[in-house]
C-alpha cells in the first residue's frame, strides 16, 4: 500500500447522500478475480446508459473534473455491501481522498486498508466544498500528518481526525498482516488458553 502524508488535488463534487457501494461499483463487475482495473467501472450505471453511451447529465462526465483526485460527497457515503471493489475502483480511477460528513463503517475501513484517505468534515464544511467545486475547478490540500484540509487560494480551512492507528497505517503504508504476525506468539497463547477446538 502506498503511504499518504499530504495530498493536493482537484475536487470532484458528488452531491448525494447515502451513495451505496452498489452505485460505486455495480455487481456486474464484481466477478473479476484481480484487484486492478476497476476504475473504468466506477459509478458505471450513473456514467453510462444501458447501451453504454455516456450520460452527459452525470457530473463526473464533465471534462472540468478530469484528473480529480479528491471526491466530496454527502452523508453516509459507501453504505451497503462490504465489497472492497468500491475503494479499488475509486483508487484505480484516481481518487486518493474521499471527504464526507459521515461514512459507512465497513467502507471507511476498506479505504484505510487500501491507502485511500477518508476524511470526515462537518456537514456545513462539506456543503461549502460541494458548492465551490460545482461552481469552479477547485484544488484542495489534505494533510494527514497535520489532520488539516485547506485551500491556498481562499480561506477554507478545516480539521479532521482519524484514529491514531489508522493514521499510522496510512502515513506509513503498512502491511497490516506483517504487523499482526509480529504478535504470533500471543495468538498461539490465546489458542492454547481457550483451547480453540477444531469445528470440522
Amino acid at each position, binding site marked *: 500500500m502506498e503511504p499518504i502524508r499530504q495530498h493536493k488535488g482537484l475536487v470532484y463534487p458528488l452531491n448525494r447522500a447515502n451513495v451505496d457501494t452498489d452505485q460505486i461499483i455495480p455487481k456486474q463487475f464484481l466477478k473479476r478475480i484481480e484487484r486492478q482495473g476497476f476504475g473504468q467501472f466506477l459509478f458505471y450505471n450513473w456514467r453510462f446508459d444501458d447501451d453504454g453511451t455516456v450520460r452527459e447529465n452525470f457530473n463526473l462526465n464533465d471534462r472540468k473534473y478530469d484528473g480529480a483526485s479528491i471526491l466530496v460527497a454527502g452523508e453516509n457515503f459507501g453504505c451497503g455491501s462490504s465489497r472492497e471493489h468500491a475503494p479499488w475502483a475509486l483508487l484505480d480511477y484516481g481518487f486518493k481522498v474521499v471527504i464526507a460528513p459521515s461514512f459507512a463503517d465497513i467502507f471507511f475501513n476498506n479505504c484505510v486498508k487500501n491507502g485511500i484517505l477518508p476524511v470526515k468534515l462537518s456537514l456545513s464544511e462539506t456543503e461549502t466544498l460541494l458548492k465551490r467545486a460545482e461552481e469552479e475547478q477547485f484544488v484542495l490540500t489534505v494533510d494527514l500528518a497535520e489532520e488539516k484540509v485547506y485551500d491556498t487560494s481562499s480561506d477554507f480551512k478545516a480539521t479532521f481526525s482519524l484514529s491514531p492507528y489508522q493514521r499510522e497505517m496510512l502515513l506509513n503504508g503498512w502491511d*497490516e498482516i506483517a504487523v499482526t504476525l509480529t504478535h504470533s506468539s500471543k495468538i498461539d497463547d490465546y489458542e492454547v488458553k481457550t483451547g480453540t477446538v477444531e469445528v*470440522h
Partner: protein
Amino acid sequence: MEPKTIVEKIWEQHIVHQEQDKPDLLYIDLHLVHEVTSPQAFEGLRMKDRKVRRPDLTFATMDHNVPTLDRYFIKDPVSKKQMDTLKDNCEEFDIPLADIDHPDQGIVHVIGPELGLTQPGKTIVCGDSHTSTHGAFGALAFGIGTSEVEHVLATQTLWQAPPKTLNVKVTGELGTGVTAKDLILAIIAKFGVRFGTGYVIEYTGDAIRSLSMEERMTVCNMSIEAGARAGLISPDETTVQFLKGKRFVPQGEDFDKAAARWKALATDPGAQYDATVEIEASEIEPQVSWGTNPGMCIPVTASIPNPDTASSQSDKEEIERALEYMGLEADQPITSVKIDHVFIGSCTNSRLSDLRRAADVVRGKKVNSNVKAIVVPGSQTVKLLAEAEGLNKIFTDAGFEWREAGCSMCLAMNDDIVPYGERCASTSNRNFEGRQGNGARTHLVSPEMAAAAAIEGHFVDVRNYTIPSFT
C-alpha cells in the same frame, strides 16, 4: 460484578492483545468465505507466501454466482472462473467447501446457522455485509472487506476498536400478518439508514423474545441497512432449542454445558448501552419500500411520499430522484403499484418458515398473468425440506418457478435479472438502484406480501387475505 452487555462479554473473551492507541486484536472463531470477495485475498496470501492459519475455523460455499436453473451450466465464463478459483483456493489451502454439487451448498448466511457453525458467543466474520444475520444467535458477527478477509485467513484475528452499543427495544407484540421483515423495515424507516452507524445493535424487548430463530435472523440480517456493522440478540431457550442436534454443535452432555455457557452470555439486567431507541410492535403494519434505499418504506395502507413535504432541500431532492428512478408518482397509494416480477429468496427470507408462510398465501391460487414469479430456497437443505412437505408443488401449481439454492435475483450476479425499467416485489434486503439489474425497480416486502402481490399483480394488504396460519 458490574452488569455487562453481551457485546462486552464476547469482546472481553476474544482479546488476544491490547496496546495503547491501538484497536484490540480480536480472535475470530469462524470465518465464512464465498466466491466473490475472496479471490484477491487468497492471491494476496500467495504473493507473500503466507498460509491460512486455521483452515478448520474457515468454511466456504458458492452462492452469489450460482445459476438457479441448471446449476451445472454456468453461462457467464467470468462467473465460472470466479467459482473455479474458489474451488482451487480451497483445495490449495485445505479449506472445507460446500461446492456447487454439495448437499450443504447455499447462501453463506443460511448454511452457517443450518449446520450449527453459527453459535452464541462466537466472533464470526465473512466478506459480506449481511454477516450480521448470525447475530440472531448471540454471536458477534460482522462483514469485512477483502483485505480483512486476507488478514483473518493469515492470522485468525482482526484489529477492531470496541464498538458502541445501541439497544433497539421492541415492546409489545406484532399483529397478525405482520412479520419480522416488516418489523426491521419499519425500524429502518423510522430511525433511518444511518442510525446504527458506529454501533453494534442489540435487539431487545418482548416482541424480539417471542420471535423464532428464523425470524430473528431476518431482523439481524438487515442491521447493516440501518448502518450497523453487527446486530445481535441475547441467546435464550429458543436459541438453544434451535441449535440442539445441529451438526457442528457439541452433542449430549457437552451440549448441555455449552447451552448453559451460551445463556450466561445474555446481557445482564441493568447493563448500560451507549444509546437506546424504542419502537412499539403493535403499531407496525406490513411494509413496502417505495424508493432506492431500505429506509424508504411505508405501510401498505399508505401513499407514496410527496417531495414537497420533505423537511429539507436535500431530502426533497433525494425523494425526487428516487421517485424518478422508481417510475412512481407522489401521493399514489402503494397498493395501486403494479408489478412485473416477484422474487422470494435471499439471506433475509429464504428459510423454510419463510417459504411455508408464502406457500400458505398462494395455496390454490394463481399467479397474475402479468407477473413472473420465482422462489429460490436459501440452501439445498431448505430446498429438500420444502420439497418433502410439498411446498414446491404449491408454488409451481400456482405458477411460480421453483429454483435451485443461491443468492439469485437478490443481486442478479447470475442470470436471474430484473430487466431495465421493470418492477419487482422482492423479499431481499436492498432496493438500491440497479441492485436486481440495471434500471430494475425493487420493492422490499415480506414473503407473505410478495406472495400476495404475485397473485394480485399489485401490492395488497396481506392481512385482508384469509390464510390458515393467520387464524
